[in-house]
């Protein structure tokens, strides 16, 4: 199934790299990544993935535990 993972974080490009490193290790197919950087390190990342529900849920939790991530939503 396809899902969109929306991530909010507060360390700019470093947060993006950390999230990508996490996603890269998941057993999902990444279809699209986009991000928008605000001032002071705010960043919103949107990742469209295809994979099993359980794997997407694991990714959600794995991203959530990243220190600089402020929110994760799976749509």
């Amino acid at each position, binding site marked *: 199934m396809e899902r969109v993972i929306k991530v909010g974080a*507060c*360390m700019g490009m*470093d947060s993006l790299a950390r999230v990508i*490193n996490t996603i890269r*290790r998941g057993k999902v197919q990444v279809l699209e990544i986009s991000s928008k950087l605000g001032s002071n*390190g705010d960043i919103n990342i949107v990742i469209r993935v295809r994979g099993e529900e359980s794997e997407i849920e694991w990714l959600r939790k794995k991203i*959530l*535990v990243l220190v600089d991530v*402020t929110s994760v939503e799976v749509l």
Partner: protein
Amino acid sequence: MIKIFQLSVKLFKPGKQCILVIPFGDALGTRGDGHGNSIKIRAADALVRAMKNLGVRHVFGIPGGSIMPVYDALYDAEDIKHYLFKHEQGAIHAADAYGRITKKPGVVLVTSGPGATNLVTGLANAYMDSSPLVAISGQVATPILGRDGFQETDIIGVTFPITKLNMQVRSPDDVVSAFTTGYIVSTEGRPGPVLIDIPRDVLLGSTGSIEPVPKIHPKAFGGEPSREEILKALRLLLNAERPVILVGGGVCWSGAWDDVITLAEILWAPIVSTFPGKNCVPNDHPLYLGPSGMHGRLEADAALANADVVLAVGTRFSDRTVGRFKEMNMKAIIHIDIDPSEIGKNVRTEVGIVSDAKKALKAMLRELPSAIQEEYNRQHSGRRSFIAWLKEIRRKYEEHIEARAGDMKPFAPWKVLKVLRRTVPPSTIVTTGVGSHQMWCELHWDVYIPGTFITSAGLGTMGFGLPAALGAKIAASNRPVMLIDGDGSFQMTMNNLSLVRDYGLPIIAVIFDNRALMLVKQWQIYMYSRRVIATEFTKNPDFVKIAEAYGIEGYRPSSYEEIESIVRRALRTDEPVIIDIELDNEKDIVLPWVKPGEWLTNAVPPEGLEVDLIWKG
């Protein structure tokens, strides 16, 4: 300098969800000149003063061009002792062990480029074993950054996947905040390593921002577990026929061993552990059966394999512990872990409790009414039969290896461990390298006091043992520290032996010397049709002479009694010693063994031992 300030990117933003101000007070002990004017000081000095005020007393490292401002600041810091290692890998393993003993992050200082890249194995090791440390790497000056300057490496890019947090500081004003953040983050929640990369000109810059705020803080996982989850878990445990408690490393960090034991005694549930979990429960408790998994005890494998309900605490369900996930998924699993991403990662859980181990176990004990205990005790006498069967497996195994001890000449590795165990005090801290000696320790070293066994479990880093022993001795100078190493593992970091005399660190080093990379050779024998290649050393250095070269007594004993005598003398005189234990590299095969991908009941027992690990009731 102005340019630096203009280029600086604020790492932290107040008011965000990820920010938490920790009441550390004024970590620098000063805010101004007393007349309302802020004092500007060199960022490197501010960093060292922040270290001091946060309680850092020991740092480990090697200086170089980019980190020199910090070393210059340390020159005046009488309260902080620096330990000069021979290689950065040694420094970071020492800091790792120091953190595991003190429960405070070990601090490592290295320069840019190779200094920083030499940390990579140590960071990955600490990350895999959830060990707290803060590594500070110097970096080339900001005008050169990204231009392939001399000794420039993008260490942030390199270490993203092996750090809990990493950050490059671009402004002198952020140096103290970054360190304080790293110091807190490394121990909060699930511990882990943090790397802070600081360009040389930033360290040399002046700052008035000396207060350690704001902070990025791990989100508050691991609060009070819900009563509903606790009750559900208890119902499963009470109704189980063969409940088993699987203890992981998280129990140690949480200090929850008493609660594990109390619960096990009430439930009459055998305790098995992961390899790091061996360090988290007194191994001489009657309900503790040992570690399960690839080089686990047969009785522990049998317990976990035949359990109907498993209460797993502070473990990530490594393949090394459970062998195969398919069979584990057929059990009812209650999983307690402070890291929500561990719940359901490798096995399907019936009840997942995101919590600190101690909090969750305390809640379980609180909710376990005595009436239910009595009722269940009457109904579940079958658990006693199960435990008796497991103990019988243990008896058979112990008798079998004892009868065959004479076949392993000059020494049976497991018997050496028994001699060492009865010779050193229970409080002795033991560190290991990685290899067959480590697996013998997994099987036969009894941890009497939780927290006294330090090993590289997750990453399996050969060379970890010696620097870890040095770090442990620095952390606990009043306790004996013993390294149990293999000759292959020892030779990977033995250059750090010089610290024994440099700083007066009297460790006991025992080398299991089989002149081979024995565990790999074992795989070649069993899994690659005995096609032994690149695992046997044609000639080893003389470890007794190596010892002498470093000003340490070295011995090559010829009997178990001699080993005991050497160790007793070293303990009595508080002198370091290296003991070279020669082993037969044809006989030094670590069994039992669960081959990779096999289920626990398929453990290969020692030759000649017949034992069925499937419970027939």
